[in-house]
């Protein structure tokens, strides 16, 4: 039988507010357990939530970015269940009236092949704390620092038909929230989390029973978990079995999905409007002000990079894949004054160095101004592109700025005609046989043979002779 996969994603993006969604406690990651939990976060008797307006603004910004319906009136609801890291015994979320309604994003499947994916809704909610099961001698520790951290839960339509599409969609949302500056996108720290609803059906048939996959904390795991789950479901169905509706956990170590709880064990969350919070009424003015102050989004930036900097579609896409990379590139290009050269360097040497060192852009030892400054020295012919690689390596190693390194190591390019001519003459005199051969060779073979002389001159000048001048002089003297 021909099977078709159907996937919908629920993405939790942690909003980059300074304080929590319903209290004034800080949201910073990595503090000592329970040091960032105030009475409200601890669910003390008598405390009340107060909505953080910055979180509302960020949610609306996302809604505008995906051209979604914005709920002018949205309501917070309580999702009731017991768990030790859920202090109040309910999570404040949104149920019937979310802040962001139907929207859409476009994903690119192959070069030039685009597909729209529907966003059903996006709603605001608070995060729970963390249960720590290790190091407590048979007990469980609870850290409530994360409790009350604002989340935007973005729910897609079941529009994706493969793990690859799901990953493309997740990456797209990841890119958008980072561009908007509403989420840092850090998947390791859990700032951006995906759950996948996966089902299979005979092509064109009715929707199959879905399983919800959890614990997919990288794009690679997302893809892997979906593929494994699809295989599992198909095997099950083809063997005459039935898929049961359940939550399954992806176990990256064993590369399998495992049942966590079935539908029967699922909670009845008893949602009802939270009486402690008034409905959120958005006035058109706020939505309009967000609309007009919208940052440039990936698609627009890509188009601008192609148009303004003359970059290929591929280069523009790579350089806009994250906002931080795009910002880095633009700054380096601006300082260097050569957009194409900057693109080659950022995508080539620079990205290669990051990869090799296993660093993120933010951790790079060479900032955009420093790289741009070095490229400027290529542009103004102080150094050659080849020497630049050596300078870049030194900069990466923390030996200082480009000018400092060029000076200290005497890497300044030799452009004095007399000086270069002296080296050229020396090389020609030392290799009379080669000169003879060259002169006897036909036109077609000559360029290759010229390389020998260029190489010798560069070697003797320790790479500092201006290659263009060397070429010109050699041609003049050999012909």
């Amino acid at each position: 039988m021909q099977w078709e996969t159907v996937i919908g994603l629920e993405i939790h993006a942690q909003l980059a507010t300074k304080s929590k969604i319903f209290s004034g406690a800080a949201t910073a990651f990595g503090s000592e357990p329970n040091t960032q939990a105030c009475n409200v976060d601890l669910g003390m008797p008598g405390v009340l939530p107060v909505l953080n307006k910055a979180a509302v603004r960020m949610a609306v910004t996302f809604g505008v970015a995906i051209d979604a319906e914005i709920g002018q009136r949205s309501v917070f609801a309580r999702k009731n269940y017991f768990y030790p890291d859920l202090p109040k015994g309910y999570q404040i979320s949104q149920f019937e009236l979310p802040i962001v309604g139907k929207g859409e994003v476009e994903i690119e499947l192959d070069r030039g092949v685009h597909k729209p994916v529907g966003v059903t809704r996006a709603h605001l909610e608070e995060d729970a704390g963390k249960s720590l099961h290790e190091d407590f001698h048979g007990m469980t520790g609870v850290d409530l620092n994360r409790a009350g951290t604002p989340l935007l839960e973005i729910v897609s339509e079941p529009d994706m038909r493969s793990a690859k599409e799901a990953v493309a969609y997740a990456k797209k949302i990841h890119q958008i929230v980072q561009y908007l500056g509403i989420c840092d996108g850090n998947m390791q720290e859990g700032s951006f989390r995906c759950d996948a609803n996966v089902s299979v059906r005979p092509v064109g048939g009715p929707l199959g029973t879905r399983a919800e996959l959890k614990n997919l904390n990288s794009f690679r795991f997302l893809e892997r978990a979906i593929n494994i789950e699809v295989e599992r479901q198909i095997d099950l169905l083809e063997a005459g079995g039935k898929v049961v509706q359940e939550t399954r956990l992806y176990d990256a170590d064993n590369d399998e999905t495992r049942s966590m709880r079935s539908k029967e064990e699922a909670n009845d969350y008893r949602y009802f409007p939270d009486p402690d919070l008034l409905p959120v009424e958005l006035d058109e003015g706020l939505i309009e002000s967000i609309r007009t102050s919208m940052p440039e989004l990936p698609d627009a930036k890509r188009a601008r990079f192609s148009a303004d900097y003359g970059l290929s579609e591929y280069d523009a896409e790579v350089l806009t894949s994250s906002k931080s990379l795009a910002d880095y590139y633009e700054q380096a290009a601006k300082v260097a004054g050569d957009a194409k050269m900057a693109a080659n360097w950022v995508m080539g040497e620079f990205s290669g160095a990051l990869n090799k060192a296993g660093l993120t852009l933010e951790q790079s030892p060479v900032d955009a101004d420093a790289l741009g400054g070095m490229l400027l020295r290529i542009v103004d012919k102080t150094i050659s592109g080849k020497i630049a690689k050596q300078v870049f390596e030194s900069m990466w190693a923390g030996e200082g700025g480009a000018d400092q390194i060029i000076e200290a190591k005497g890497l300044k390019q030799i452009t004095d005609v007399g000086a270069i001519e002296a080296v050229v003459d020396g090389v020609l005199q030392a290799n009379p046989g080669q000169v003879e051969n060259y002169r006897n060779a036909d036109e077609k073979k000559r360029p290759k043979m010229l390389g020998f002389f260029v190489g010798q001159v560069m070697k003797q000048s320790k790479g500092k002779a201006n290659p263009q001048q060397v070429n010109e002089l050699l041609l003049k003297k050999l012909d």
Partner: protein
Amino acid sequence: MHNKTISELAQGLRAGDFSSVELTQTYLDRVARFNPQLNSYITICEATALQAAALADQQISDGDAPLLTGIPIAHKDIFCTDGVKTSCGSKMLDNFIAPYDAHVVSLFKQAGAVMLGKTNMDEFAMGSSNENSFYGPVHNPWKSGAVPGGSSGGSAAAVAAGLCVAATGTDTGGSIRQPAAFCGITGLKPTYGRVSRYGMIAFASSLDQGGPMARTAEDAAAMLQVMAGFDTRDSTSAEQPVPDYTAGLNDDIAGLRIGVPREYLGGGLDPAIEASIQLALAEYKRLGAELVEISLPNTELGVPTYYVVAPAECSSNLSRFDGVRFGHRCSEPKDLEDLYKRSRGEGFGAEVKRRIMVGTYALSAGYYDAYYLKAQKIRHLISDDFRDAFKQVDVIMGPTAPSTAFGIGEKADDPVTMYLSDIYTIAVNLAGLPGMSIPVQPVDGMPVGLQLIGNYFEEAKLLNVAHRLQQVTDWHSATPAGFE
């Protein structure tokens, strides 16, 4: 000293007739003497009260101290008090020392009031008789063996017996007004949102409202003046200016239109109570008011609606009492489920469990529309009844409760009969209106309350109307025998 009003005491303190330390000691002595028989206090704060009194004396001698400076009051044990046990009448919180002050508590601190202690109450404010307290029932000062009403029964009994000058209470379905009626004192439930709920342990969030319980309308005004106001920590508190509640107390009420709902008279109402109500209404006529018969057609839906909404909210509000972070935890839990089941099973009393179960059921998938959603719709109808009535009248009056204080144990096994004792007060909470109870002609020596219902944020008018009656009658100044 214990029969004086707040303004009389304030004058006495400023004139140097007595100090706050002396006044406080007088009340502490009365508490020590009478509380064992009344059980109106759960916690007595002798040392901190005397410290606060000494500080108040200093402030008064420095001049420019607010009216309540040095006045001994009590807080219902539902308000969190920093460093002081806040039990909410429950075993669940018997070990809970609140780490912060409720907004209301900090306002009284700022106003210089002296807190004598925390008063007894029905567990988590669920009850109409104060029998549902982990700390045992409170006795009505007017008759030992009779209930003081509830849930603010401890505050009502303490005020009536002169064990504090005034007290705070909370009212979700009548919990200030009904005990005020049973104990012969003046109690005011403000408009929903008038007083911050921050630090007031939630029972039913959309209905709960704190308010004053005092001997007179004038004292209630002084208390409300301190309590009322917007609080950024409570999203449901109202950003409305707070008027001067004492300024208009003596305003003439000639021409006042008093609505008397026909649904509030007759029916299950004790005829003797109806006679007391009519007597009070006749006094109002003498003061120049006009009586208008009105109808609140959805009155009988109040109790059933309330007993869906309030339990639904409480079932969620009380989830935080899970034995994990504070409050009662069972010994040696086997696992998480055991921890939850035994901690909650042991920590909560029967009425609280009953309401959590009713509320959980009402919110369950498949029942939500039939119960919770429907109740919310009826709530709108009830509000509409009042809105229409206030087009014709300025205030509404009727009985606070259908009977006088009943005996301890009399209704304890019959929750529905108990629930019906709030029939006249509940609709006011569902609509979010201000309501008040003031003492009128007693029946067989037991106090009777006249309920006054005002339009939104018209507490000043209610206080004025109540005060005018108290100027021409002395029902409010009666003192129970043995507590003179």
